[in-house]
């Protein structure tokens, strides 16, 4: 059951890391110090999102399989359900993090 607790927490933790990465990338490109070129930043953000997105999708599919094989009255079933939904919500949230970088061309639109 401890493993399942990890499975609930890890997708949304991945989202948190992804968000921090995107926020840091935008700050690095758009703040006065301008550490990064915007187009380079967008490429990096895309790659990071690809990686995070793949990982969370793997977790989502693994979690769905585990849930299907989990007995309806098993005591750990709520955690297995929670793991699937956590992965679903996290996947959506990770994709949405990429929205601004994907849609907008530069720091000022």
């Amino acid at each position, binding site marked *: 059951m401890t493993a399942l607790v990890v499975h609930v927490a890890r997708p949304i933790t991945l989202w948190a890391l992804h968000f921090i990465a995107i926020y840091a990338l935008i700050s690095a490109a758009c*703040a006065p110090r301008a550490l990064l070129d915007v187009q380079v930043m967008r490429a990096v953000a895309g790659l990071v999102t690809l990686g995070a997105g793949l990982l969370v999708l793997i977790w989502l599919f693994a979690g769905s399989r585990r849930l299907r094989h989990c007995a309806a009255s098993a*005591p750990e079933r709520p955690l297995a*359900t929670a793991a699937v939904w956590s992965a679903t919500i996290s996947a959506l949230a990770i994709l949405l993090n990429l929205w*601004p970088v994907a849609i907008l061309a530069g720091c*000022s639109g």
Partner: protein
Amino acid sequence: MTDARHDPPPAVPPRSDAYETAPKGARETAPKGARETAPKGARDKDFEQVWATPDGARALSSVSHRVVGKRFLITGFIFFLIAGILALLVRLQLMVPENTFLDSETYNQVFTMHGTIMMFLFAIPMLEGFAVYLIPLMIGARDLVFPRLGAFGYYCYLFGGIIVLSSFVFDAAPAGGWFMYVPLSTSQYTQGLSADFWLIGITLAEIASVTAAIEIIASILCSRAPGMSLTRMPILMWYLLVTAFMIAIGFPPLIIGSILLEAERLLGLPFFDITQGGDPLLWQHLFWLFGHPEVYIIFLPGAGMVATMLPVFVGKPLFGYGFAVAAVVTMGFLSFGLWAHHMFATGLPILSLSLFSAASTMVAVPTGVQIFCFIATLSLARPRLTVPMYFILGFLFIFVLGGLTGVMLAAVPFNLQAHDSYFVVAHLHYVLIGGFVFPMFGALYYWVPHFTGRMMSERLGKWAFWLMFSGFNLAFFMMHLTGLRGMPRRIATYPADLGWDRLNMLSTFGAFVLAAGIAVFIVDFFRHRHAGPKAGHDPWGAATLEWLHTPVTPDYNFRAIPEIRSREPLWDQPELTDRPATEIAGALRDNADHRRETIGCDPVTGAPVQILRLPHPTWFPLIAALGLAVLFGATLASLYWLSGVGAGIALAGFTGWVWEPSDSGAVRDSGIRDGLELPVNVVNRHSHLYVGNMAMILILFALFASLLFAGMYLWNTQPLSADATQRPARIYALLTLGLAVVVFTLSWMISRSVLLGGPLMLTAMLNVLLAVIVAGVALTLTLALVPVDPWSSAFAAVGWTLAAYIGALLAVMLYWTLFNALRKLVGAVGPGQGLPDFLLGSFGKAAAVMTAITAAAFLFAGTPQ
């Protein structure tokens, strides 16, 4: 995974020599024969005496969660009424255009204090009160795991609140808004003490929030009844656990921001001064990094209470427990990614605006999941329309509306019109009053019988509800329109004929109707205490353990702690309801050691792993809190010698608190099936103190991360000033880094020494060596910063603040390690009682990591670009 009932009992930790000899300081066990022949009545009486709350003035020394919880609730409600009266004053002033009821200065104080008291002195303490009171009762424990910490937190809240309120008496009430934006709140534009009352008083009161977070995390994870796995605990516990983690991470940015602003006001450090490379937006980032999670910290317990009460009135378990768990956990995380939506008009780059806009809309997903779980639960059977149920329906109406206007506000173009207008005032009151206050009143009607043993009036309750519901909507719905018609927030008056006159008049009228509803509640509360019908056993037909006894539950909560096999124990386990509550079989019925104790469990499975010995009433938490109050209050009054006295009293209080004989090393019969023996206060990762220590370390890392954020932000947005700042001395930064590694190693060695049962003298020597190295680190860190003048730039000031923070950690570590050494030297520590050193090991490693990161940052800053 099989049912816990069939699991083999958990392995008792390996016996070392430590267990063979009775450790010094542990109480002697009554001889076996004596236990069996003592009459039952005498045993019960003795048990009750151990748990009795002292009366008279000595009740102030009580640390029992029931007492502390009720104190939080009562004090929180009083602050609610005070802030509510301030709101009525605001509405009276705004009732007509160009009103002269309140002058500008007074109005600014009134609206600032309304927001400040509601957010810091009512909402958080109120939810803490419910948490502190309900958690042990619902998880099958006799008390929280750190009762003294809870009592200490309450007193800090009380004294902090008194300091803030006293500002009215000194005609120095804060008048800069509850959000205290800079530069308006800096010493340049706000002279006098008003801002300092806010910064100092609120920081003292916030100590209660972080101590509550530590307590909640450790209690929920470590002290559940045997068999109560994570999936069998009430959903409210999931809500409170997530809330506690959010407090642990969300409050530190505000604490750091407050410290920075107070340092600016007292010492002139230029964090926000644009002429010295400071940035007013740094305050906004720090404030809203706290402020946004704060409102979810307030909402989640309210939703949790709805999730608890609603199934009771439907008579069926909550629909989608697993969905709800996922929604609550993800919402806790997602709420940290929204903060800059309070800053859409500050000129952030469009990429940032869009990121925060997208993240803000995303939070609608887990919110929606919870709401739909509630709606689905309603469909499971025909619900009973009781007074708490009315408030739940009110929550659904008001909160959903507020949530939807929130999604509107997440759209940046719309936000640029609605921001800082009455539209936002409407939105925030819809989500806060709908999401917290309405569930709170429902919860009060629901759990008041547990506090007093009597039911409140159904008739008056319905009156209260309808007055509150209609008054609230009348007052605040209009404000959506008022805001879109151009009325900004925080204005003491407005000209006539701009289309706002009638709307404001209606809002004022509604506010008074809402107040009337609250007045009805108060009248009913006082009336019911002598005239309300007595509550029978489980008056609402609830499923959770707090209703095991007929109200009022005895002080000890559970005569014997039952084994739990279901999420709805009172519905599914007949052995809990077919006999008097005092005769239910379970753990720890015997009390041979005459000590307060409860069962400690595995955090995930709920299997029993230890017996937790809990403190009896003591004065030390009050003394420590009093010391802090004197420290904070004297600093406010610039009586620095008195601050020193306060610090001394606090230190004495903390020392007395922790200087006590250890209970570890003993093994006792738990009373669970076939004489299962459990160790007392284990010295390993299962220890509740270890979990609490880890929660505290999380908070320390969050404080550290906030300071790092401040430094990185200034480095990034004020590059000219940051690059022109003097550089730290690299050789000393390198030395600090090296010594940090030594501290890490020594700390690790100290924990290993305890776990492996090493000789006490070895550990004592390591303690002293650690003290020497820690002092060395403090020296090298200071020397690294000697070339940097903290007043020369904001970036320099943040560097010094970072070093001061590490210095504080090092000072705590110095005291702690020498304290541990001293206790061993005077023979107060027996074998197997190494918990303080075990915890010091974790703390030391964490402090070493933070020191190393700081040293590395100074190394980097010391290197010319």
